[in-house]
């Protein structure tokens, strides 16, 4: 899988987790990668649920330094965090 294809797969998994646990005010499928998730109803509680779902899906554990609001601010930021966590594993 190419780097671009892998990132697309990550984003699809992130959208799936957002759809199940994000409690967004819009459909997760309609959210652009750079959209501010907190602007569409994302909360800290929902962010933790999404994070735990991603950890299960990717078999990773986000390190403490990534547990910031910025990490969960957009789909793109989440994809970056998944990528960094996977690379550090």
């Amino acid at each position: 899988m190419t780097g671009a294809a892998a990132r697309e797969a990550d984003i699809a998994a992130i959208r799936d987790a957002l759809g199940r646990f994000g409690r967004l005010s819009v459909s997760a499928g309609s959210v652009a990668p750079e959209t501010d998730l907190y602007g569409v109803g994302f909360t800290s509680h929902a962010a933790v649920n999404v994070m735990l779902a991603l950890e299960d899906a990717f078999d990773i554990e986000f390190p403490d330094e990534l547990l910031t609001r910025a990490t969960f601010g957009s789909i793109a930021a989440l994809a970056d965090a998944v990528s960094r966590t996977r690379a550090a594993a």
Partner: protein
Amino acid sequence: MSVHHGWVGDPALFVAVHLPERAALGVVICPPLAQEGVSAYRTLRLLAERLEARGVAAVRFDAPGRGESAPVAETGAVLGGAREAAELLRRAGCARIAYLGLASGAFAASAAAEPGDLLVLWDAPRSGRAWLRRQRSLAALTLGPDRVADGVETIVGMDLTEGEVAAIGAAGVAVPAGVRAVAVVRRGEQPPAEVAETVEVDGMEDLLGVSSMTSRIPADAVLTIVDRLAAEAGSGAEESPAGASAEPAPLTPPRLAAERHADGIVERLLRVGPHALFGIETAPRDPAPGAPVLLLHNGASEHRVGAADYQVLWGRELAARGVRVLRVDRRGTGESGELDLDPDDLMFTQAWIDDQDAMIEAAGVDGDRLVVAGLCVGAWLAAHAAPRRPRLVVGISQDVFRPEPAAPNEIVEYFRQVDRVTPARRRLRRAFNRFAPPRLKVLVARTRGRGDVGAHFAPLAEAGVPTVLLLSPLDVAGFADLDGPETVRRMGGAVEVIRLPSGDHSLFSRPARLRVFEELSSRVAAGAAPGAH
């Protein structure tokens, strides 16, 4: 309803025992730890009341060392208390016991269950380690660097000792041999352990997956569990311990202490005013004549303990310094008022102003001996004490300054709308914040219900009551949006504003809590003679 409150045992456990006239089954309700316990408070009280109405006894308790229970030094004690609570039900006459644990309360429930008991694991985490992981992540997002300060770890709503971390991390929800277990899970989820029966319910996301202010009682879950336990109460005794009867027996109210004495202070139960509001007074055992009295309000729709039990701890520390401290549940919070499956939220209403009047009446003091302090809505209420001319008003994390009360449910519905903001509304708000002139921002903030700083504090200023505002960084920003700094400057020193360098609105942050207490205690206890110790 027949609910008996008080303390039992040593170290004392604070309990609320619900007894119908006759029962065969008694249910020990184990509450979740930390802020989940605050969010779930009304739900568990309603569960106990509904069980009692169906002929099932129940006991709720504050975990050892937490809430109104006495401090404990023992490592891991926070996961205890359930067997002591069960013993109360047995002594009252219940032949059979069920342990029910909600969320992390499942750790205490599964540890306590013995052969012949029923165990109900309600929305239980897979393990203590998994629960800690979730709570630490939430704390990291909520508290940032304040999550660990001065070597003390804080999760949202609870400071943890190293012993507690170890005990919770090692906890699980295994079903002991000989115990029948029922898992109550969210729709589509798997039970956390091997159980005899799994029941799916709705609504749990709106109980524990949101802030305590906007959480809702999960009606489907409460009714389902009550039905299941009432059926259990009426079932045969073939699965019960030897000799246990399935027939309801007359129950005898337990002997509970209405006062708790410790270290020169005394805590006692209160019932206040025409609505019999529930409260706790913490006082020096031998108060000096003229000792100050602090009426201490919690925020939002939360009961009297505060995040990480800080209101309880403040009460005890101030009592040791000679101050009487009253913490009272306003209607619709904690143990006060009627509860149903979809209760009215009374934040910022006239009903709570009336409740505060009743509390001050019950305190039996006003003027120079009275100090009124509170967090958020508690701060707003405190300012309404102006006609009593207290010596001091302290507002913590105040962000609403509306002179007029709100209608029931008005505020909580506003915050639920904020949580459901649409992208278009978000863009509009962002553009407004960027381009609108400052005076227009102030006007809009006032008309949208956050209020008018000058009008809010005018009665206190006119009564000559000194007022101190202790604001977190977020509240400082909101205060500026309302032109607060300029307004209080024009009031000529009647309102002192102290800006905290860090921390959060709810005082989940331990450093912020310590800083606020330092400020509050130095001002409240000024002039107080310490009680005899």
